């Protein structure tokens, strides 16, 4: 019996040892990992130096691990086990213990006295932009929105670091700098708080706000522009020139993506379109593209991502409506601008948007000086208040 047991064991053991490399070689190679949102490793070039110092072999290991047969299934199985079987409070760096998925920050405290100096440096740069824009009679405004984990800071379990000890002082230092420099600042955390800090303004499964949160930010900034400039920009609202539609498609947020969509969620994305429709043309990175605001799915079964809004992150987008009686605008920032842009353009003749992470054709100030928009909005989340503008 022992011989049979050993023989059976051996067959299984050797079978797996053979099947994995053979399966990996035969399997179709992916270029990109959807779940990890990155390019997968390519087979490393054999170099003398790489062999001598061993780095080539390490790169082969990376290649193998990126392309091992069944990789996504294996990862998903591990994630499922951690979520459902082991019931861990944090899985793949996401806090999954409550009804909202949040970033896990780890633990550790550092000296935050650097924040005042950083805020001053950023304030100086923004001051420069403000002077530049107001120099030709334009208006500059900073629209600050909380990051999702900031918005839901009170949802962290008591034993976890919610980062309010650093985010709060950073926000205060930043706001103080802008106030001292006379730069208009719309702090959406205060606006959301005044409105009761409802759950519906931020996603439970993505690091962005919801469309309701984005619309609230759009309204708040245009109200501020109107109040400061008297431009009388039209603000669309639901039922007042804006038609909202909630898509039935499953929403795969940036956070649920990290847990292979195993965290239960009934959240859906909403889109808004002006009614009556306003004709426009769209130019992305210098080339005319289809005049759309949303990367809509082809079927209801297809999941949607935050990249639904404006088709994701584009270095430069220009929307033209051929209404020269209206002012021109520029909004710059990061991905938070995408949802706001879908409705912001309706108030302007031409709306330009720059994604600071991808726009590398020149300095922001140069761009502003060339196009001289009437209204310039910087939209960033509070975790970026003290970061460079790029």
């Amino acid at each position: 019996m022992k011989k049979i047991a050993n023989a059976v064991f051996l067959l299984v053991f050797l079978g797996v040892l053979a099947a994995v490399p053979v399966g990996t070689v035969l399997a179709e190679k992916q270029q990109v990992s959807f779940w990890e949102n990155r390019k997968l490793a390519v087979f490393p070039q054999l170099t003398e130096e790489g062999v001598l110092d061993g780095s080539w072999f390490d790169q082969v290991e990376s290649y193998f691990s990126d392309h091992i047969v069944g990789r996504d299934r294996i990862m998903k199985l591990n994630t499922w086990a951690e979520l459902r079987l082991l019931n861990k409070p944090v899985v793949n760096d996401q806090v999954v213990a409550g009804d909202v998925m949040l970033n896990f920050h780890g633990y550790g405290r550092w000296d935050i006295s650097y924040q005042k100096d950083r805020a001053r440096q950023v304030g100086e740069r923004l001051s420069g932009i403000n002077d530049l824009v107001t120099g030709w009679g334009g208006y500059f405004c900073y629209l600050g929105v909380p990051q999702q984990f900031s918005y839901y800071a009170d949802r962290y379990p008591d034993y976890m670091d919610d980062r309010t000890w650093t985010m709060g002082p950073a926000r205060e230092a930043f706001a103080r700098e802008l106030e001292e420099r006379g730069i208009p600042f719309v702090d959406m955390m205060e606006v959301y708080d005044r409105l009761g800090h409802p759950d519906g303004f931020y996603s439970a499964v993505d690091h962005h706000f919801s469309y309701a949160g984005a619309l609230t930010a759009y309204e708040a900034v245009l109200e501020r522009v109107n109040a400061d400039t008297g431009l009388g920009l039209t603000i669309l609202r639901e039922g007042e020139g804006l038609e909202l539609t909630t898509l039935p498609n499953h929403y795969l947020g940036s956070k649920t993506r990290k847990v292979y969509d195993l965290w239960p969620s009934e959240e859906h994305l909403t889109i808004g379109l002006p009614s009556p429709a306003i004709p426009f043309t769209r130019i992305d990175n210098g080339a005319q593209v289809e005049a759309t605001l949303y990367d809509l799915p082809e079927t209801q079964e297809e999941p949607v991502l935050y990249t639904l809004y404006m088709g994701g992150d584009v270095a430069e987008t220009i929307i033209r409506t051929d209404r020269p009686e209206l002012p021109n605008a520029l909004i710059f920032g990061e991905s938070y601008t995408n949802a706001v842009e879908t409705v912001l353009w309706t108030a302007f003749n031409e709306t330009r948007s720059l994604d600071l992470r991808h726009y590398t054709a020149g300095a922001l100030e140069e761009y502003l000086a060339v196009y001289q928009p009437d209204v310039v909005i910087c939209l960033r989340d509070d975790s970026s208040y003290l970061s460079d503008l790029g």
Partner: protein
Amino acid sequence: MVFSSLNFLFLFLPALLVCYFILPSRYREGRNLVLLGFSLAFYAYAGVRFLPIILVSILINYLFGLLVSPERRGGRKAAVTLAVVCNLALLGWFKYAMFTAGVLNDLGIAVPIPQVVLPIGISFFTFQGMSYVLDVYRGDAAAERSPLRVALYIALFPQLVAGPIVRYTTVAGEIRVRRESVDEFSEGAVRFLLGLSKKMLLANPMSQIADAAFALPVEQLSAGMAWLGVISYAFQIYFDFSGYSDMAIGLGRMFGFHFLENFDYPYLSRSVTEFWRRWHISLGSWFRDYVYIPLGGNRGPMWKRLRNILVVWALTGFWHGAEWNFLFWGLYYGLLLTGEKFLWGGLLDRLPSPLRRLYTLVLVCVGWALFRSETAAGALGMVRVLFGGGSGGLAGQALYYLLEFRWELLFAVIAALPVKRWAEGFLARQEGAAAKALSLWGPRVLALGLGAWSVVRLVSSTFNPFIYFRF
């Protein structure tokens, strides 16, 4: 290369098995050559530039093995002395040159600090090579005329980079004549998979807790987190090291070798003395046989006996790493062993077993705090916090790690106990067919299941997501 890597599991090992077993067993030297070739390739994986170092070590020990053989008439003592000097010079340069230069500079003696890269496994294969020469010199083993067999002994990949330190006498016969069989291979593979599981499923999670605790500045460390960190490190190092030894022993068995056990449930020890009979047995016995006993061991006046203990333990500490905290760690144990031997050993023997085990565990954990800390100051700071000298620490951190790793901690406690022996003993006493079936299939199914899960964890450890697309 490490055993717990995809390259090893699914490229190196399958290729080796094919090349090795495709040769009929009567071609023993052919199979040995395959094993040697793959062992050197295993070593070269860390960088081909390191290959000459192990080849030099092999050559030194092969030649000196011939020179110190009892068959030779004269010059044996000089030869063995030179062999030890050459081996220690090799080890000393690669492992201790930077440290020594740093110390000299700190003392005001300006010397250039050489930038030396430590070749992987040098501590292990140097000791192994030295033990071959010393055993031949003593007449415990015959000098091996075939350089390939000496090379195979020193470079054999299962124990090359992390032990156990295999004595030549243990494997000399098996290098020449051994029998691979389905039973031996399977039982070796079971052992290998269980060792892999210890590493992937227990040691790695424990390292996350330990790393977090030891990375904290002392002022941010609570007593709870300090203890959790130290206990986790105790588990991490045990499962990492004993898991690696299991894998080495299992791999050896797959190819017909029988290495000696390296760990024997050390956390059950009732004294520090007993702990060191159960922990890294091959290292302890190496220092006993080649340093302690030649120095005089337990004989002679008290000062010599104390000296012998402290010398061995200073060297043991330093063998682990070229840093002051390793030396302190070694001397810490030297003092404890001295104390047990000459001062409180009798009192200890009279205490109830649970108290003795607690005493041992606390002292061993303090030892791990010294061992793991990056600096001597850090080590002392950690020990201070362990015993209430901290200033509070970050609220909630210990609770988070307890919740996040509660299952791993629970299984770590279980796996540190001789559950296997208890289960085997219990099943052996049962008479039903179910017990027999469980006894037969249980370990194999468990090994396959845990091994599979280890691979899942191994692949998952490469999970590397980005919020924004990374090119």
